[in-house]
């Protein structure tokens, strides 16, 4: 019952790696942005504020995209496993998130 009901472990490992390295990337980008903004506050002649703010924004966007890319990855993994019911469920979740973005526009 177990092997047929769960994705194989390596799939869980892939999802774990995506979320972990994505978190590291987004955190590093936000951290770098804050440091640049701080450098600007100490010495405004450096004019780092705009770059710092831009980096923070990129980091925040990476964080918001991270769960979305996790659902995309799961959709691909379900497709590979020929599990079309779950592929459709993952696609539905993506469609709902997309609808939210459209509402926001």
């Amino acid at each position, binding site marked *: 019952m177990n092997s047929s009901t769960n994705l194989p472990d390596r799939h869980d490992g892939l999802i*774990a790696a995506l979320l972990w390295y994505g978190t590291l990337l987004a955190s590093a980008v936000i951290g770098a942005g804050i440091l640049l903004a701080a450098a600007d506050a100490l010495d405004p002649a450096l004019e780092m504020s705009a770059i710092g703010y831009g980096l*923070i*924004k990129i980091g925040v966007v990476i964080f918001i995209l991270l769960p979305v890319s996790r659902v995309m990855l799961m959709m691909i993994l379900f497709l590979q496993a020929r599990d079309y019911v779950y592929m459709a469920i993952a696609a539905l979740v993506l469609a709902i998130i997309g609808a939210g973005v459209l509402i926001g526009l």
Partner: protein
Amino acid sequence: MDMTTVLWLFAVAFGASALGGMLGMASGIFIVPILILAFGIDIHVAIAASIVSVIACSCGSASPFLKGRLTNVKLAIVLETATTLGALTGVLLIGIIPTPFLYALFSLILVLSAQQMMARRRQLIRNTPPDPASWATRLRLHASFPDRALGTDIPYQVDRVPLGMFLMYGAGVISALLGIGSGVLKIPAMDTALRLPIKVSSATSNFMIGVTAAASGGAYLVRGDIDMGIAGPVALGSVVGALAGARLLMRMPAEKLRILFSVVLIALAIQMMLSALDIQIWGS
């Protein structure tokens, strides 16, 4: 962007998240009141900023649960159809709902969280064979998880998926409206309706929160509701704090911490309720 404020935001998010992490709870429920009460930030800005930190904490803490095979990813994606739909509803409602009502709702959720923190989580495990006609059976949701103490895999059933989805929809609405992970609604749904083992319930709930919050976070982002100077340091502080808190989890006397947290939650609830009433008084 005022640098001192940015550093304070980082420090406070770190502290709240580290303390929350020690009790295995998300920090969003503390972040929003702190941003409003201590930093004087508008409630809508606080909610949008907090949603980013909710995503960050969910993603940052998912890996050990996945590797420990505690997360039921199939159940997560099924329930996410309900939580994201709820989040969408919340995004539509937040523009219409009067601000005092948001304060009052937040106050109510804080009280429920305090009550939940003091209550013991009960585990209801059924031993009867799974109903072949149930949603959970047809969607192949029954699974097993490894128990380290016993050294074997323990199979479990997933119960009452439609009821669980209904409650998850509500959790999604609250998450988007208040900028929190709404564990306060997810935990009863997963423990009581779906009757999952506690470890599976916690891991799966934490896994789902990121996608739920991304549904509202994406909408708030394109709407321009997210103040990067606030969201950035709060998200970074929260994720680093959550990781630090999880490490400290074992070393603290949890019972005293629980009581302290409940008191803090009630104090924040009173303050938020006063804010709700104040605005009504000034408004009229």
